[in-house]
């Protein structure tokens, strides 16, 4: 993956982004509470870079991805994309925005219409945005997209279930590339795939980024080794907040937040010789209910270094070293 993007220009900026979902129960759909899926997130993505979002289920990483492409509406805060605040646009105003960014889903079968041919699926964005003139140009472009993601164009007329999981994810990627976007949100793009397919798809994504200058990714995954492999910078999330944000090289070498440390310790390295020497500190407890998050630092009930201040004081995300942000009172 390109380590030094040619153009360091900022493409996406999230400022104090919050996305809250009301929880309704019963026949009268009474509001029982609020889940703060994303609660005050600040992030930037530069042109051509890959930003990794990692965290365990319920940490809000998927919500951020879907809010960036405005499948969800932010409760507060704003989403600046290519210099424009898109957080309050309506569906019609969003159409040109959605030409410039696209989404790759976790479940390659669920995100492809089972009744449409692969070619039809890949070409859909072209038709929606009227990007090609005439049949010939259209089919040429679809074939070109097929080749770009390593699919044989002779399979254009097949329906999704006739493809393997890895190939289906390639179809999803081809569709995401159709409009030449500047940002692709990859929401767990490899976690539903087999090990040998994961590597193919991860390599494809980095090849594409190299080949198509300036393409940025937000790479969302729960697997820290996968995220670290593809990302230039990684943001670790816990209960709707970013707890640590740094270059991916720094993350493994010098993790600052206790949660990041615990997460790293929990991920086994596929090498028994290394594992033998590693310390296996196990993080106790479970992620608290987002309906009723802990006070102060939300990680404090599980934190081995918890102090009295942690229980009451909400830590800010602070820059502790060059480009290394941590939200911990002790850091």
């Amino acid at each position, binding site marked *: *993956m390109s*380590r030094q993007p040619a153009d360091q220009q900022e493409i996406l900026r999230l400022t104090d982004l919050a996305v809250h979902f009301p929880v309704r129960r019963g026949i009268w759909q009474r509001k029982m509470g609020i889940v703060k899926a994303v609660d005050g997130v600040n992030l930037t993505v530069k042109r051509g870079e890959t930003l990794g979002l990692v965290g*365990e*289920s319920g940490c809000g990483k998927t919500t951020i991805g879907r809010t960036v492409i405005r499948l969800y509406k932010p409760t507060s805060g704003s989403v600046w994309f290519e210099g424009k605040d898109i957080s309050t646009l309506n569906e019609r105003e969003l159409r040109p925005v959605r030409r410039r960014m696209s989404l790759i889903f976790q479940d390659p079968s669920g995100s492809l219409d089972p009744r449409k041919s692969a070619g039809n699926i890949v070409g859909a964005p072209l038709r929606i945005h009227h990007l090609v003139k005439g049949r010939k140009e259209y089919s040429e472009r679809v074939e070109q997209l097929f080749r770009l993601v390593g699919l044989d164009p002779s399979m254009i007329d097949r329906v999704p279930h006739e493809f*393997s999981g*890895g*190939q289906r994810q390639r179809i999803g990627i081809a569709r995401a590339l159709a409009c030449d976007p500047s940002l692709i949100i990859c929401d767990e793009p490899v976690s539903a795939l*087999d*090990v*040998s*397919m*994961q*590597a*193919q798809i*991860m*390599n494809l994504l*980095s090849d594409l980024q190299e080949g198509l200058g300036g393409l940025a990714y937000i790479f969302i995954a*729960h*697997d*820290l*080794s*996968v995220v*670290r*492999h593809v990302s230039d910078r990684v943001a670790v999330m816990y209960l709707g907040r970013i707890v640590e944000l740094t270059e*991916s*090289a720094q993350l*493994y070498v010098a993790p600052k937040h206790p949660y990041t440390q*615990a*997460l*790293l*310790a*929990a*991920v*086994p*390295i*596929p*090498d*028994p*010789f*290394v*594992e033998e020497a590693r310390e*296996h500190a*196990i*993080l*106790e407890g*479970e*992620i608290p209910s987002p309906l009723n998050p802990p006070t102060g630092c939300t990680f404090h009930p599980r934190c081995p270094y918890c102090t009295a201040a942690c229980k009451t004081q909400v830590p800010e995300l602070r820059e502790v070293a060059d480009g290394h942000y941590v939200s911990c009172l002790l850091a």
Partner: protein
Amino acid sequence: MSEATTGTMSGAAAPAAAPASRTPILEVRDLRVQFKTPLGTVNAVDGVSYELYEDEIVAVVGESGCGKSATQLAVMQLLQSPPGRIAGGEVVFEGQDLLKFKKNGPEMRKVRGGQIAMIFQEPINSLNPVLTIGDQLVEAYELHCGLKGQTDKQVAIDLLKMVGIPAAEKRVNDYPHQFSGGMCQRVMIAMGLSCSPRILIADEPTTALDVTTQAQMLELMKNLVREMHASLVIVTHNLGVVARYVERIYVMYAGRVVESGSTKDIFGNPRHPYTLGLLKSVPRLDEVQGSRLIPIEGMPPNLIDMPGTCAFLPRCPYAVEQCRTEPWPELTCVGEGHCARCYVNVEERRS
């Protein structure tokens, strides 16, 4: 586990003499499982042999469709039938061939749950949503231990405490939906181990769980199994889990064991190109920044109409002429307890 305790193998199916002090508690010989599909018969498990010794942790590793789960379900006689069918082989547990028992007969029911327990990937699906956790634990305990109506809630509370569920006295009256995924998996482990089985089979036990929960769960299983002197079979595709917790490995591909050996042999000196490919295709947390993965190109084979030649041949970068003309090689031992199904000496070819 020391090198000496892992069995050695010679030739294909029959495991050769293990160290005299130890006989395997479970021996699977030439197991075959077929699935009938509208498009033809799938040989999901095609002559798998393995053995399990007392007190050891073994992994069966492979990608989806390689037959790793079907093998375990066949051992437990839990295959959905139809479409599944055990087409041959033996499963010898404590001197008896389990496959000779009737699927739901009294002998098999005694073994299943009582002596060999199994836990599954989706814990929430394995629990009955309308019964309390306590009731289900008591039921499982009585069923597995052959007791009837002699136990009370205290058993369930003790079991919950055993698997580290806080406030067990209160939570015993909860329903499954009030438990998180990790808690449900703990309950499943409690059920599985309620009667001190000899063997616990965990089929992708942590795939649906978060990393920190996964680590908790594996640590718990490992400790409990050690305490009970039981053996643990982990069925997984996660090589990291294998490297951290397991002593011996069976790597499966297209319904067969392609390589087996101690964890260090498999990781340090892989002898089958598929094993090697798997190891090179996973990102590592400690890798050098910017390194590239080397994926296994192509796709797993279609298990209907399998060619007689090596099933990995179309994806194999080390293939030689012999691979194209001769049938799939037998599992041959290349070292102490380290066997692979390949004509090529991968180690030599790599250098």
